[in-house]
């Protein structure tokens, strides 16, 4: 089966700093792949290249076997890649429907904003994620952390993403809201969506992910099945930057060469 996303030898440097160094990784439909590593390991830069924020310096991105280059975030979105950034990327002064449809507004036949329909559609998708979410007219500024997260997730889901990138989706949330996010990840996985998940919480990662790709200093240390390793093995990989000695670690970085 063709991978949903295949990254081949991707590099990105800022001046002399190799932020992403010849990275390989893959993502299949219905799979959750965790991206792990210390701050500065290159995870964020990698996903920014994947979501069209930075152009890659070297390497290829294949989406369903087709080679893609993203000049802007909207081009990545057109290829079916939706990103939930750690900052959530919401306009604080606008309400939930405006944020949900930002850049992809629904228009009336007269080319004006169809605010009523956007509000209606937003209510549908948001209340499926979070039934307690009612007030659609409130600016995002006045919302709780969980509500903001809901808006950001709803924005990614509404447009039928096939590939979802989630950068620290649970970092600022309370326990109930974390469960909401985990539940959403499970459901999306069941629907055949592929997810790259960045998280620092090892418990979350082991609960949600099928595989993890560990990075250090911009390069991939190794990619392993969660089922084949323990949390301590993964922690050792993150800290020492060495391949795991655990059994079944076949999926090394050269797999696709």
């Amino acid at each position, binding site marked *: 089966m063709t991978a949903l996303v295949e990254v081949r030898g991707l590099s990105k440097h800022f001046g002399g700093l190799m932020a992403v160094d010849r990275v390989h990784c893959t993502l299949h439909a219905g799979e959750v792949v965790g991206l792990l590593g210390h701050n500065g390991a290159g995870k964020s830069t990698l996903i920014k290249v994947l979501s069209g924020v930075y152009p890659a310096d070297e390497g290829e991105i294949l989406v369903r076997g087709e080679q893609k280059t993203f000049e802007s975030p909207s081009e990545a979105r057109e290829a079916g890649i939706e990103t939930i950034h750690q900052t959530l990327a919401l*306009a604080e002064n606008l309400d939930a429907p405006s944020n949900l449809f930002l850049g992809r507004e629904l228009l009336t036949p007269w080319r004006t904003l169809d605010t009523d329909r956007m509000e209606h559609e937003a209510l549908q998708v948001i209340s499926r994620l979070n039934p307690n979410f009612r007030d659609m007219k409130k600016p995002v500024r006045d919302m709780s952390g969980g509500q903001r997260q809901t808006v950001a997730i709803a924005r990614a889901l509404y447009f039928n993403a096939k590939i979802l990138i989630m950068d620290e989706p649970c970092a600022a949330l309370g326990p109930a809201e974390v469960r909401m996010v985990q539940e959403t990840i499970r459901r999306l996985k069941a629907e055949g969506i592929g997810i790259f998940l960045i998280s620092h919480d090892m418990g979350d990662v082991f609960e949600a992910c099928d595989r993890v790709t560990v990075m250090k200093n911009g390069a991939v240390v190794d990619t392993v099945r969660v089922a084949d390793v323990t949390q301590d093995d993964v922690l050792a990989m993150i800290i020492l930057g060495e391949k795991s000695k655990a059994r079944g670690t076949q999926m090394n970085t050269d797999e696709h060469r």
Partner: protein
Amino acid sequence: MRAWLEKAGFDPRFTSLVLALALIWVALALATDGIFLTPRNLYNLSIQTCVTALMACGMVYLIVARQIDLSVGSQMAFTGMVIAWVQVEGLGAETPFAWIASIGAGLVAGMLLGAFQGWWTAYRGLPAFVVTLAGYLMFRGAAFLVADGQTLAPLSTTFQRIGGGVHGSIGPQWSWLLGLLACAWVISQAVYARRSRRRYNAAMAPMWAEVVKTLVTCAALLGFVAVVCAYPDPGVDEGVAATGKGIGVPVLILIAVAAVLTIVSQRTRFGRHVFAYGGNPEAAFLSGLPTKRVVLTLFMLMGALAAIAAVITTSRLNSGTHSIGQMAELYVIAATVIGGASFAGGVGTIPGAIVGALLIQSLDNGMVLMDVSSAKRQIFIGLILIGAVWMDNVYTRRMTR
């Protein structure tokens, strides 16, 4: 007090602005023995306000998007000279349609100035403050060069009417018709909005508050028409019975521009993107908005509005001089900020900017009637600007606490 206002559906900022304006008018009327409130003075005030208000409409958009344009006065001077040059040197003032061609040329010139500043700001990442400060200097110099420092006059007689002077108004009949139409529109909008909110079960302001708001708006509109119609037209030919002047052409231009820009800000994709960019530039970029193009377009819009302001000013002066629009940037920015636009970005309205412009021009006009010297007026307007920004700071801090 604020919570109560909000519950009743009044925007607290806009309401306090209107109340402040009313207070200032009462104070100025008392200080000038009522001269301030005579129809003649109010007609002139309405014309004076237009130039500032037109540019404030563009400045609102820029400030909402976290930009600024310090060069609007110089843009006025340059585009005004281009307009006068096309009429006087280019085509001949009384050549048919020369005045239309000159307006076209002025608009194109304004948009080119805006494109220049927008390109440096959006595509080369320079701060708007620096780019437009340079523009402030350069465009003033360019205005001088158009006719080597000379004044170009006279202009087309048709063109002169645009300034609101002789034959520059639409008379009482059309004015009343327009006033009544505007009231009908205000009422229908209020009814329509209420129905739509009921259909979606959205929260509604109490009925009495809506009625008060609508009545006040209609009273202001009809009151304005009554005042400008009470000003006998000094320009009518001898032997013809003097009628009231009615609404001045500049006011009509302002109304048209303000209506279009309000619709654009609330009802179009572009307007939504401007507000999103102002609220969070990074989010706008990550959402795939064409942020650079939005900023470029805003500067071009500002240039076009400066050109329209130049049309009115050159028409009133019946000449093109390179010295028009001096200190206009201060009045425009002050009007915009008084009108509730915030330098923090993402906040501001067109009606607010227009009332802000009316407020600042009222002060200026009233101080002239009171024989306050221009040096003292400058000091006062400067203090008003600081006061407005300070109030915005206090307000923003309270909102985010």
